[in-house]
């Protein structure tokens, strides 16, 4: 069957999750913003997948999304916390 793509809602959830727990930051330099944001998102996704022992792809797969939807502690997993 066709490979299911993450919905816009899932992508928004993922972005919010990575901002909250993996220090994903907004890119302010507008000229290269889109590309840099995409690279950073992939890297942060990989960081999360590595932490949870998942297959490290940098892509928003079902397993990663399921973990993001679980109730959890608000303290970041690897990012600086102050």
């Amino acid at each position, binding site marked *: 069957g066709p490979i299911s793509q993450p919905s816009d809602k899932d992508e928004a959830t993922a972005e919010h999750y990575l901002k909250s727990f993996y220090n994903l930051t907004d890119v302010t330099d507008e000229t290269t913003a889109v590309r840099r944001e995409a690279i950073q998102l992939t890297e942060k996704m990989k960081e999360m997948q590595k932490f949870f022992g998942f297959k490290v792809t940098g892509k928003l797969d079902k397993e990663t999304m399921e973990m993001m939807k679980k109730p959890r*502690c608000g303290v970041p997993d690897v990012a600086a916390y102050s």
Partner: protein
Amino acid sequence: TFEGKPKWQTNKLTYRILNYTPDMSVAEVDTSMEKALQVWAKVTPLKFTRIYSGTADIMISFGTRYHGDAYPFDGPQGTLAHAFAPSLAIGGDAHFDDDEFFTFRSSKGFVLFLVAAHEFGHSLGLSHSNVRGALMFPTYSFTDPNHFSLPSDDIRGIQSLYGPNRDRTPIQPDPEVPTTPNACDPNLILDAVTTLRGETMFFKDSFFWRRSPSRSVTQLPIKRFWLNAPNNIDAAYEDPVQDKLFFFKGRQVWAFNGINLVPGYPKTLSSFGLPSSVRKVSAAVHVKSSGKTLLFIDKVYYSYDARAKKMDRRYPQRVESGFSEMTGAVTAAHISNGYIYLYSGTNVYEFGLYSKKYLRELKNNFFLPC
């Protein structure tokens, strides 16, 4: 631990409960917080004293959304709570999201004791653990508070900051505290393996690994799933027709429908028609197509007809006579993708399910992440 290893410079800490959730009685909240702090006090020299006014090291409060720090809560579900690493002012403080439904011990809500014990780990200087089953793992997982014991990963973490509790005998680590089995241990011998509604469960001591069809694996305490199940089981199998899961330990057998104990269980092994001389079943597996359950007792096995509810004739047989090359005692067994896997010590032997032809030898952690 957090970067820079922040920790309290004294072992005598104070806490104060600033307000309460409406979900629970005041006494239940007080007890939950006290018990959560004692989780850490038991394994360290730390002592906690409650104060009712002024500034405590650990200020405990319930709030929603924006509640006075840089980390607003997000409504129901999602983030449940957070706490700050040891330092002055907000350091050590623990905040609980009151948009959640907290409970004293029910699984229908978030057990406050479990959430608080995790948060106080942060208050004392622990960051998140990537060990599944550890208290400091970031996601919430229900466990019966009456059966809670601090996993070894958390003990190692907190004792790296404060050392062990020398007042307690025996000296830590507490032998009653289960250590988390390691899938990469070359000497790992699994207690039992079974399928359950499409997933595969691998049991060791008081924990099991849960492997989904997508191959993701999580490790959990047995009691977190089956409150009435024993730890250190001998064997397990699933009968998908009855939608039942069976656990064997010693001369007893438990049957579960999902996570619920089937009324009338545990029963004795004689309910399977096994002779009274059998003291334990070392492995079990159910073949759905034939309706037969193979019950292994070390180097021999019986065939139980689940449909006729009686033991087949001409059993027990030597395992080797049914499964060539299988000369050792069978310690666990399961079926996956048309193959039957028989475990013996640290090895797994793969056979064709119907041909019973020996195919290959694997290591015990073949199905586990290592």
